[in-house]
């Protein structure tokens, strides 16, 4: 059974100067245990998609169209208390910056135990044992001693391991990892990614890995969804997409694959910049930067077409240039 199914999701922000869609018409599916990479530039809407799935869109934004189903059950229109029970228990989240994600005045143990006991009805001692076990699994040395220490006593990489433990400790079926390595030292990035991949294999948890780093996707993900200006422009198995990208934007992103490491947010390989949400052109949003632009591109928006496994939103794939 499909674990997660997102259909035609649109998130709108209602401001004084009108409504702006942060993401538009996003659809994706995820099978249990699958790792889906979401890639794109800053502001493409990848983090917003993650936040929408976990029900953490803050006013003045809200989901204005579409639906989200988790194991067949609709979760986008649940009352706050019901979605709260899903967060952490069925969908976990890993945040970008481990330095700011942990509460500085509570010990690592307190934060872990509270999260475990919120979702699993366990006595305190059992929860503590489980917390220690999770610290061990994410590779914290001497977890029995370190469980009672505070976040500031951990290094950045260690803290991100704690964040991963916090996201996984109530055994969710899905984890949304939002740029989990961006804030880390290059030397630590690979370790954390390796840990994430290993834990996903061990626990069978599905992962949505949000990143602007194609290299990380190539190393980790099973499938990849490429986002541009609030929409998914291409989706498919990582190997296929890497070998034969079908959207010109994906091809542009390709240029940045070989190494794992920090990369400029704006891709030098593609000229120009992504349009802001309130200034998107009527046709294909990528058209102004696209080297293969032709007649319909500036007027008519291409739909995402293809098989559920591999699809792309580009006029090049549906029409032959005249």
């Amino acid at each position, binding site marked *: 059974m499909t674990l997660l199914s997102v259909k035609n999701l649109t998130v709108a922000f209602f401001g004084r100067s009108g409504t702006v869609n942060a993401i538009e018409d996003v659809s994706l599916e995820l099978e249990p245990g699958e790792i889906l990479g979401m890639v794109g530039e800053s502001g493409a809407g990848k983090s917003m998609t993650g936040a929408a799935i976990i029900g953490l869109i803050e006013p003045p934004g809200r989901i204005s169209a579409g639906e989200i189903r988790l194991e067949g059950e609709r979760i986008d229109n649940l009352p706050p208390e019901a979605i709260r*029970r899903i967060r952490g228990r069925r969908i976990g989240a890993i*945040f970008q910056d481990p330095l700011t994600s942990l509460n500085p005045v509570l010990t690592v143990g307190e934060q872990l135990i509270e*999260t475990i006991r919120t*979702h699993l009805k366990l006595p305190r001692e059992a929860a503590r044992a489980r917390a220690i076990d999770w610290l061990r699994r994410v590779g914290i040395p001497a977890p029995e001693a370190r469980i009672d220490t505070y976040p500031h006593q951990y290094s950045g990489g260690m803290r991100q391991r704690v964040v991963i433990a916090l*996201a996984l400790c109530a055994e969710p079926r899905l984890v949304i990892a939002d740029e989990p390595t961006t804030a880390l030292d290059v030397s630590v990035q690979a370790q954390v990614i390796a840990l994430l991949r290993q834990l996903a294999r061990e626990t069978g948890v599905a992962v949505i890995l949000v990143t602007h780093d194609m290299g990380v996707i190539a190393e980790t993900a099973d499938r990849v969804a490429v986002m541009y200006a609030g929409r998914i422009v291409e989706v498919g198995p990582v190997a296929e997409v890497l070998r034969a990208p079908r959207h010109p934007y994906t091809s542009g992103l390709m240029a940045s694959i070989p190494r794992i490491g920090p990369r400029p947010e704006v891709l030098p390989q593609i000229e120009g910049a992504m349009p802001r949400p309130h200034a998107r052109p009527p046709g294909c949003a990528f058209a102004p930067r696209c080297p293969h632009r032709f007649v319909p591109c500036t007027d008519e928006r291409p739909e995402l077409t293809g098989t559920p496994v591999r699809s792309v939103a580009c006029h090049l794939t549906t029409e032959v240039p005249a």
Partner: protein
Amino acid sequence: MLGFLVRRVIQSVFVMLAVALIAFLMFRFMGDPVNSMVAENASTEERAAVRERLGLDQPLWLQYGRFVARAAQGDFGLSWRNARPVSTLLAERFPATAELVLVAAVLSLVLGIPLGILTALRPRSFPAQSLQLISLIGISLPTFVTGILLILVFSVWLGWLPSFGRGDVVDIGWWSTGFFTLAGLKALILPSIMLCLFQLTLIMRLVRAEMLEVLRTDYIKFARARGLSNRSIHFRHALKNTLIPVITIFGLQLGGLIAFAIVTETVFQWPGMGALFIQAVSFGDVPVMAAYLVLVSLIFVIINTTVDLLYAVLDPRLRVDGARGAH
């Protein structure tokens, strides 16, 4: 932790020595101390004898040393105004001020923190918005005007509450308390409201601002993403981070309460140390002024040191003992 404590105590001792120096200089150079000790028609010899007996012919630093030694034992000599020992005067007045400041401090915390949380968690609600407006006025209103308005409304027009004095007090040892009689408690109401009002608005605004700040942090968002309950997020995760800076400011403001007790005691004719100090200022009664200065400074120093220690206890990042493995 121990090193921090020792450093803090040494600092405090220096501040107290500086304050004592000011007090000493006041003693030594304001008016002639001899005048207060001898009859007006005393001869030059008699004056010289007193001068020698008081040690005024000795080097200044020695005099200062003896002043500090005597002050440490609570001996500030006699009041120039009524020739009674200053320490006795202060001891008589201390309980009244202490009770007033205590009640005002507790009121401002007990009301200020919940109101601040309320206005932070429900910023658009009607009570929150009106509280913000009231607090703006509260901060601009001079305290003595507040006091006068309270008296005008509750004593003159409504006649509900007394407008002066402590009511009936009960002596427990040397401490006289107004806590155990109805009249004593009623007499406390208006003065403590007047004294706490500014503090209350300050704490409320501070808690609100800090709380809003904390609620925007990543660790609160991450706590939400882990599905923790709102109650835990607000009162366990956010409140603790909010209160740490609030405690510091409150400690500093406690000094403000003691200072503004002077005004409150004047408005309500409250027989405390502040009223005593004002009399001393208007009569130029140096021993009382000096003793009040030293006593109040001592209280400030104790409060500040306590606050720093509390801060270190509450904020784990400041606990310097935990040197283990920040690898």
